[in-house]
């Protein structure tokens, strides 16, 4: 009769680590189990949906009147970056000067920190989530604003994401 296979404490611990998704018992003497969270260095973002809510799909259009922005005052936010992707179109209808930029400090208007809007010509920005658009001026001006969604981009991204996840699952035999 063959002697029973001997396993060490170390080999039992290693076999547990091979399946990090399963909760591990606390080592002797400890009461808090290890977490099942993956790498905490990767920021968590909501997965792109393949169905678009009505709110994210709407178009906004209005006329924005700039106020004289004083030194040290908070720079107004024209677009707060709440959509995954958006197309923002701006047309300055008066003489300016009006500057826009992604930084919260874009004054003075001639400093180059922001981009000066030309009068009578449409300027278009495609902005991803989280990027705010600030606007400042030293005069009262009319700026026509149109914010359009890029819904198809979001749907395509979600579909590609799903396909990629399915391909990985097929290759590894594991669900992601």
């Amino acid at each position, binding site marked *: 009769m063959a002697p029973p296979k001997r396993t060490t404490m170390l080999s039992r611990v290693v076999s547990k680590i091979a399946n990090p998704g399963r909760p591990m018992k606390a080592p002797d003497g400890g009461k808090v189990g290890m977490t099942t969270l993956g790498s905490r260095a990767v920021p968590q973002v909501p997965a792109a949906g393949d169905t678009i809510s009505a709110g994210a799909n709407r178009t906004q259009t209005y006329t924005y009147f700039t106020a004289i922005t004083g030194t040290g005052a908070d720079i107004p936010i024209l677009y707060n970056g709440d959509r995954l992707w958006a197309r923002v179109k701006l047309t300055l*209808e008066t*003489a300016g*000067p009006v500057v826009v930029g992604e930084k919260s400090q874009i004054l*003075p208007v001639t400093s180059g920190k922001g981009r000066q809007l030309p*009068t009578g010509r449409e300027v278009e920005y495609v902005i991803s989530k989280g990027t705010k658009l600030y606007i400042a001026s030293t*005069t*009262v001006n*009319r700026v026509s604003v149109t914010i359009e969604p890029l819904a198809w981009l979001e749907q395509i991204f979600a579909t590609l994401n799903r396909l990629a996840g399915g391909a990985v699952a097929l290759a590894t035999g594991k669900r992601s």
Partner: protein
Amino acid sequence: MTYPQPSANEAVVDGRDSFRLLTQLVSPGDIYQSEQSGFAFALGPQSDLSRINVDYFDNNVAGSMQRVVLGTRTPYTGIIQARNETTYEAATNAGRPPVPGHILFSPANLVPKIVQSASQQVFAPVLDVIQYLQPPSGTLPQVRNDKDYFFNDFPTAGGAYSIFLPFYGRVFADIRFNTSAGGESARIRGYNYYSSSGAIITTLMAATALAGGPLQKLVRAPVDGFFDYIELTVSGGTGLAIQTFVRFSDIPQ
């Protein structure tokens, strides 16, 4: 200076593409301001003044204030930005507050003190300037509108009565007196001011008896000269109604 000052910002909020500053001057030292930048500036159609100063912020000149003068045939095209966030350099007087870098409008013509009395009426000149908030699509105005005055009577019961009319830069005047009977006389003089209360006076028509019916005098700049003001004086004291028609024009006739 009229209060409250006309605001260029209202033109922006109202959706207009230009700001028109149209105001009667109150004193020789009137200065008006605009907080708006402009693509072009021109004399307005109803301006009595033939020249208007436009002062703006420019770091290239001493005091940071540069000036361009608008005329009847010399509008200004080119963007001028109102630097509301900065100030013109203070004068040497330390007690003088700094002036914000707005665009400033003021008369370039010498304007007299406006003094009304029982024997005279002075018409204050009108300042009319157009500031374009968008690039102008056509040519800018080159001449002012003809200016017409009609007076139904001169109150000469107490003696002579004078009316002073602004004539800055005009090249033609048609002045007509009309009475039903004789007894009154009319005189026309031209004024060129060298100070707010002093002028060189030129007689364009000496005192002429009004014999009932029309009396006409044409003033042409190439012959008679340029004047800041035209004075019409009627005297006689008969109390007869004297109708007077006046037309000033920028177009030679």
